């Protein structure tokens, strides 16, 4: 499947505590752990197959949310209306 294939044989197929593991992975993906997070991540992904798969799914979801959830176009006159209202209020 990818370069990790030969290593994946050594991975645990079951995760001891999916909830806790997944929450940790999610925090790392959200950038909450900073650089130390990357080390923890490498270790986790190498050791645990469910975590490895979960990580890729989570990453894909963040990616599509960020890139494919189109932003609603701002109505053209909105900024102008706001400035006018503020002038009135001054």
């Amino acid at each position: 499947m990818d370069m990790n294939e030969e290593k994946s044989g050594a991975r645990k197929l079951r995760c001891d505590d999916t909830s806790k593991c997944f929450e940790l992975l999610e925090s790392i993906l959200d950038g909450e752990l900073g650089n130390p997070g990357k080390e923890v991540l490498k270790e986790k992904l190498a050791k645990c197959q469910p975590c490895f798969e979960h990580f890729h799914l989570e990453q894909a979801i963040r990616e599509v949310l960020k890139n494919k959830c189109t932003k609603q176009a701002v109505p053209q006159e909105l900024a102008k209306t706001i400035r006018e209202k503020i002038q009135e209020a001054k």
Partner: protein
Amino acid sequence: MSEVQRRKYSQEEKNSIFDGEFMPHIDSMYNFAYRLTFDEDDAKDLVQDTYLKSYRFINSFEQGTNAKAWLFRILKNSFINEYRKKSKQPAKVDYQEVETYYNSDDVDFQGTTDLRAESVKDMLGDEISNALNSLAVDFRTVIILCDLEGFTYEEMAKILDIPIGTVRSRLHRARNLLKEKLKGYAQHMGYKTDEEE
């Protein structure tokens, strides 16, 4: 985010803060408002209200702090306090109820075998958007703030007036619910799932 009026800005400073630090966020603000209300006019009103308030209370904004987070907090409060009351939407459950309801472990997403990263990547923007929009407003909100707008947990805690731990757990549940929706789409659209292999 302090409500305390620390100092007064001169008229010139006010204008420069408003133009330089507040107005550049109008796109994100409108997008957030639209995803909360699903209505163009309501979204416009909400953004306009927020900007008028931001100007009125500009002295409680501390220059150099995160203007976007400050504005989002005002918008979210306006939405809850004013807009939600006169909303055309059916009444939504409030935070407390949502939190309790989903506080059981059985909502935890059951493994990844039935939703694959590849199928998610193949989905269209509309499908992702619809899945997000179908979540209850409190769950939708944390995903918008985190994934679409890139706020940190700490900033989200301030915007939503909830502890960081609650941000984390609400986000976790929101993503699980989103995955359930996406799984539904994936099956419906005939994307490849493990079961078919």
